[in-house]
């Protein structure tokens, strides 16, 4: 098992009700696997998993990526900084 930190931002944080959690995940868990795990453990976030962005160590990550040990993960909606078009 790998110990990882998972941060939530914006809508995801509101729905999770927390800014961050620590998780033990199987060492071969992919980003897609993480989405399924979060859907199961946080029913409030299930809907969000469809359009969520996931980062590993502050870089965008994709479904097939395997999560490395001690990773800093984050989940958030598409970004909306700057000016709104």
């Amino acid at each position: 098992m790998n110990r990882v930190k998972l941060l939530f931002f914006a809508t995801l944080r509101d729905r999770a009700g927390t800014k961050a959690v620590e998780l033990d995940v199987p060492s071969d868990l992919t980003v897609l696997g993480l989405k399924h795990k979060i859907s199961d453990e946080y029913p409030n976030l299930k809907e969000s998993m469809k359009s969520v962005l996931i980062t590993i160590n502050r870089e965008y990550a994709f479904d097939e990526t395997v999560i490395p040990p001690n990773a800093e993960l984050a989940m958030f909606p598409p970004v909306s900084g700057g000016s709104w078009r």
Partner: protein
Amino acid sequence: MLRLLRAENHRPRNDVINIMNFPTIFSITEDEIDLNDLLAKITLTSTGAAAIFTGMVRGLTTRNEAHETEYLEYEAYIPMAEAKMKQVAEEIRERWPVVEGIAIVQRIGKLYPKTPTVLIACTAAHRDTGVFEAARYGIDRLKEIVPIWKKEVSPDGEFWVEGEYIPKAGE
């Protein structure tokens, strides 16, 4: 003739400046965005032109669903946002090597209408070398890949504003 000789002497010196001393500023801050100060920081002796973009909080929006905004609340995934601002600056320098200074600033926290919330500024020796395009590219990229979100608070309630862009691998 003297001029030409001087020109030859300048070039290598200027290349050194190109490589070593071009200022890049990126910051996520709760403080007011000071355009005068930022412009001074990215102006070199060789700089003759600056293109600056700022985004402000609109109190009244008429495009699409017209609405009023009381204030916006910005939040950022700060260490990643700083890394992505740095990446945007690097992308600009790759595409427009003539760009001298770059400043990218996002203000976060509770921001009221008419307040500048984001700034991108690029300087260059001359205005016809892509400095406008570089600033435009910068703000467009910022909106795509820098992890910053805003919650809009209006007379109708509050809601998160979500973007649409899905970054690709390596972005």
